[in-house]
């Protein structure tokens, strides 16, 4: 698990601590484990306190590393939050790509992708909150990363199996807007309700994301 580039497995990497005493992890593995804990901790602190009150000291304390170790990995709080965001975005892209390659019909693949994304986020609520508006509003580089993520997911949505000619004219903003809206909805549910209700959103979100293609598929 250690050394992975992303949190794809759903392991609780924030609480993950190396056993005390002797272990056979290389320094690089120890460093990677620290880095993952810092990323998870940064997302948690941001969710709890908001951007203005997210400090490197609080992140380091939550991740059980020293403040000095924080600056070995990251230049600043915003640098760390950006890395957490990118890790989340990579995980989501990976999950969606995998679901989209399943050998099933398009609407079912969309449903599977939604299910898998929601299960991942329900297991990592702090990462789910990164999808809300706070992190990108506070940090320009996260806003850019968010735009890239939405663009790539919109591309996946557009790449459904419905042939071009049947689709008709779907305005450019439609898929992006639905994905933006869905991300906000997920972040809001994580923030204000329990994470189990997140999984219950799957049928609605699947239906909503399929809206641009409904007429085409009914035709």
């Amino acid at each position: 698990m250690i050394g992975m580039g992303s949190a794809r497995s759903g392991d609780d990497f924030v609480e993950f601590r190396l056993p005390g005493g002797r272990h056979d992890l290389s320094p690089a593995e120890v460093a990677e484990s620290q880095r993952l804990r810092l990323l998870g901790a940064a997302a948690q602190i941001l969710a709890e306190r908001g951007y203005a009150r997210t400090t490197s000291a609080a992140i380091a304390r939550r991740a059980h590393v020293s403040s000095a170790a924080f600056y070995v990995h990251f230049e600043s709080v915003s640098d760390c939050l950006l890395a957490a965001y990118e890790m989340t975005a990579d995980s989501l892209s990976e999950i969606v790509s995998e679901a989209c390659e399943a050998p099933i019909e398009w609407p079912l693949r969309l449903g599977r992708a939604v299910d898998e994304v929601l299960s991942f986020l329900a297991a990592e609520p702090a990462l789910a909150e990164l999808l809300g508006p706070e992190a990108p509003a506070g940090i320009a580089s996260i806003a850019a990363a968010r735009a890239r993520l939405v663009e790539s997911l919109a591309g996946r949505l557009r790449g459904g199996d419905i042939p071009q000619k049947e689709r008709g004219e779907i305005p450019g903003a439609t898929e992006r807007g639905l994905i933006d809206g869905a991300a906000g909805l997920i972040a809001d549910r994580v923030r204000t309700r329990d994470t189990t209700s997140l999984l219950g959103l799957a049928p609605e979100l699947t239906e909503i994301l399929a809206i641009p293609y409904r007429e085409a598929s009914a035709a």
Partner: protein
Amino acid sequence: MHKRRRLMDAIADLSATRGYQATSIAALVRHAEVARKTLYDNFESKEEVFLAALDSGISEGLRRTEAACEAAGGDWRQRIGAGLDALLQYLAENPAEAHIFMIEALSATPASSARYDAAIERFIELLRQNVPAGNGLPGTIEETLVGGVAWILHREIRRGKAGSVTALCPELRAFLFAPYESSTKRGP
């Protein structure tokens, strides 16, 4: 202009250009051309000035949107379209207010981010009141649509294009109408 208003305008301008956190009391009173004492005669803190500016911008934006929806008559497309136009027009005419509402409010303070959430809630409610009834769409559709519009606007404003958000009207209209159009056309 009233000094209280001048301080509110100044904090909107400064927060929009350099960010709320980076705006000092000294810069604020200088920009508003009032004495430091005037600030404290009218407000408790920098945050209170910011929240007053934010509240005033949000309620004016909401007021114009609601008024336009109501004035547009009975057709749901016309009502939603008119509301959207009025909101975009307001944001384009008031780029500093647009910036503090759509961007700074989210990261400035917990109270300002709660104001943002409450405003979004009002827009969701407004959309819900104006869409065709019995459309058979999921209950979270309006929340998703308003969230989507908010993000598209957020991006434009962050790119410094608050003044020209009205150019997004056709795209955003199509985005807001699409779900209801396909549900009404699809029939029973």
